């Protein structure tokens, strides 16, 4: 297994280099940071503009190859350059990654777990009321764009807050300033953060579980009449136990691959949620940087996305090996 993973890691490293380089070249060629200076009043002197752009390695008058060389040398030393504002990209990337993770982990895990359970339940109750309701609900969720869903949740939360007269839900930012200084100290700070998390987590979980439940339902339908489930029942397991212990366990295997890749992509894909709820995560940063023409940030985030997706692939390989004895190599 270890050598298999090593081989995969080497392959993936090559892929990351290619993906990151292409991302940089595209961003550097297409984005025009010079325009930012031209809009300023008063317009800065040409020499200053040139110097500033060159300092940030964003000068479109420098040949692309040279800029790429500078950028690549920096990246090899673990430095993604500077943002438009002049601060190091690395620090900001790290900070925003943590924000994104705080926002996403709960939602992604809850979405997966609930989606799998609902999908499995729907399959077991095929064509009956629970199945119909779950199917209807998941189609509804799939049909609603994430930002609409987020807005709807906000509206509903506002109603709840108004009716109860309490601030049960919060929907702007990660925390309220000064929450940790209240009567309950650090505990109050935590509570405040949880209140801020509720809505965005629900948004992400709902969007995810709709997809997962559809996939899981069809996976589960495949094993519903499987011979080994019948064997399990012939051994004396009830239908529900046989389906959970033997059916669901087998039907979960393909789902894990799907989960791993989705999670890798989710890091960037949560930009709507971040925007709507005012979380300053990676997705939001990418969008803002593109409008600003900040090629270094765009390249860094893309590079990070490539790493995330390929790591997800690696994780899915490991999970597959753990869950499915049939693919383990060198088992004999």
């Amino acid at each position: 297994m270890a050598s298999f993973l090593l081989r995969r890691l080497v392959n993936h490293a090559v892929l990351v280099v290619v993906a990151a380089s292409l991302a940089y070249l595209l961003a550097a060629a297409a984005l025009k940071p010079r325009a930012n200076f031209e809009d300023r009043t008063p317009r800065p002197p040409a020499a200053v503009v040139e110097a500033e752009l060159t300092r940030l390695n964003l000068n479109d008058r420098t040949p692309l190859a040279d800029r790429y060389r500078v950028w690549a040398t920096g990246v090899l030393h673990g430095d993604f350059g500077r943002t438009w504002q002049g601060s190091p990209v690395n620090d900001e990337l790290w900070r925003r990654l943590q924000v994104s993770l705080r926002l996403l982990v709960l939602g992604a895990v809850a979405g997966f777990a609930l989606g799998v359970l609902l999908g499995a339940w729907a399959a077991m109750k095929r064509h009956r009321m629970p199945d119909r309701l779950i199917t209807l609900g998941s189609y509804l969720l799939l049909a609603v764009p994430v930002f609409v869903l987020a807005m709807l949740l906000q509206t509903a939360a506002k109603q709840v807050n108004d009716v109860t007269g309490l601030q049960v839900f919060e929907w702007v930012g990660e925390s309220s300033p000064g929450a940790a200084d209240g009567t309950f100290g650090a505990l109050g700070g935590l509570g405040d953060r949880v209140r801020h998390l509720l809505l965005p987590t629900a948004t992400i979980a709902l969007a995810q579980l709709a997809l997962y439940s559809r996939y899981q339902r069809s996976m589960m339908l495949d094993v519903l009449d499987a011979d080994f489930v019948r064997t399990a029942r012939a051994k004396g397991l009830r239908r529900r136990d046989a389906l959970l212990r033997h059916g669901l366990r087998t039907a979960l295997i393909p789902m894990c691959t799907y989960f791993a890749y989705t999670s890798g992509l989710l890091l960037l894909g949560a930009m709507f949620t971040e925007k709507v709820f005012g979380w300053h995560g990676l997705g939001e940063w990418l969008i803002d940087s593109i409008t600003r023409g900040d090629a270094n940030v765009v390249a860094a985030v893309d590079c990070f996305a490539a790493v995330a997706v390929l790591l997800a692939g690696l994780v899915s390989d490991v999970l597959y090996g753990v869950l499915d004895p049939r693919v383990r190599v060198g088992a004999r």
Partner: protein
Amino acid sequence: MTVPEPVPPPVLHPAAEPVLEPAAEPVLEIADLHVTYAPGVRAVRGVGFAVRRGEVLGVVGESGSGKTALALATLGLLPESARVRGSVRLRGRELLGRSDAELSRVRGKDLAMVFQDPLSALTPVHQIGDQIAETIRVHAGATRGAARARAVELMELVGIPGAARVARGYPHELSGGMRQRVMIAMAIANDPLAIVADEPTTALDVTVQEQVLEVLRVAKEATGAAIVLITHDLGVVAGFADRVMVMYAGRAVESGPVGEVYRRPRMPYTIGLMRSLPRLDGGAARALPMEGAPATTGCPFAPRCPVVLPACARGEPPPAPVGPAGHVAACVNTAATERQDRVFPDPEPVLRSPRPPRHERPPVLEVTGLVKHHPRYRGTLYKRRVGAVRAVDGISLDVRAGETLGLVGESGCGKTSALMEILRLGTPQQGRITVFGQDTAALTAARRKALRRDLQVVFQDPFASLDPRMRVAAILTEPLTTHGVRKALIPGRVQELLKLVGLEPEHASRYPQDLSGGQRQRVGIARALALEPRLLLLDEPVAALDVSVQAGVTELLEELQARMGLAYLFVAHDLAVVRQIADRVAVMYHGRIVEIGSVDAVYEAPAHPYTRALLDAVPYPDPERERRRRRTPLAGDPPDPSAPPEGCRFRPRCPRHAGLDGEQRRLCAEIDPVLRAAPGGQDQRAACHYPQGETPWWKSP
């Protein structure tokens, strides 16, 4: 995980007491059972039987006769949409109508089941030991450790070598025979009162079937359970069952003691079934008009019955006693069925125009030293070759005009690989293939395409080998247009082909799914014949068909050969079918041909111990003879094709090797035998250092 060491004969569990007290009370009693699937499909219609402790009831019938529905209904495992009524009593307790929770306390404890396909019937992701242990834990509430230990004991009981190690393995690491042993271990884990075995040996090779039946016998003796053995194989029932019940269209049409029913079958369907079996001793099989759908009113067998009376249409005949010891048959015209040969007379031999002797006929296919190896790779960053799967490892054979060569062997012996390699018409890895005098390695693309007209193939599975989206006419037209037959001629040719294979003109507009298995295989044969080939490669053409349908297709093949002078290369695992259809036979083992010669010579006096073992393992559909049969099951599984043993490849499983002295054994261990003329045989060669022409068991008095 392959298990190379030979399997020791199963040992009775020390705790097992001698059982079989003369308990007359039936353990499992089924009465007037009806199973109806959702849209009015009546799978089982009023079936009843009773099995006593230690007794084996064989249930036979063709596909769709309701055997499996009966088994599932007994255990309450039918799909939820199915409706069941009647009565299923286990030791007098009614099981029908109980909840899943109540039934789950009975299933796997008092009433166990062994399923057909042991690969799909075991959960792929759980360890084997855990799967057996689960059966124990569900019912006995034993601790995990104790249950695991008991599981290993059970695995030893059913003859799994290295049980403790195998218990930590997964189902895909085991061979088919070993998986079926695991299924049996699971079934007997809680000393059940009754075991229902649904086609337990159908997917297995004859040699492995023999071993598994032996295990089932041991299991029966260890637990004293009553066994309901469901199968389509009359040979298996003859040797294993005490009583037999024949099912047709969801009804039990005949039942009674095995000896009685086999000797004097009284229902025309049973008679037909018996007589349509190809016999290992060369007795002719009688093809039945066995492809009518069951009638919906009256006796369901009437449309196919040769002794049908007007009274047969007047409602289903009730079972009536026709012999001693509870022999009953559901037939109106029992007067006519007193003489079997009057119902289905012996077939007239297929009229063959006299063939010139073999050496005067030109060879249509010559294979010399053919090799097909699949390389195996291993390694992390770079791959290196670590040996090869020797699928075909140097075989030579020839087929002459107008004759049939049968190619037989266990699964994995390389027979299909050899056929595919010939069909490719390419350059073999080693050796030469000459088709109609042309070396396939030297063919141009145009010549190769032209040659394909003369060489066609029929595949095993008529359900998978026809495109479900094409009508029969389109299937038959495709080869014609591919080879540039003029459009105007095609419709006529399609009709001609349908007639040739015994189908009706209106079948042309049907889709494959609207045809029965036999009809589909006829379409497959018609497609192969479309271009008037001279050589047909047949890959298990009847293996997927019911016995009665098999006989019809085999007869068709014989007839076509006689009329059109076709040559066949007939790949099969069923030795009886090969005996019936082939002129010569080649026995393959481990990528090699170990014996080749005329069918009569090889079957009457097999020189190679492997041929002998294969013939010995075929169950014979005659209870008396079947019980007398030498039971010397071939030890072990078919070998790992990537690691042939030194010297003779058959040595590790060879029964003859055991009887040799040290000096003689050295020859086997060191020198790989080549094909040599067998003693006494004219057209018979065997690759054995100590060939003996032995009289097969069915010849001995």
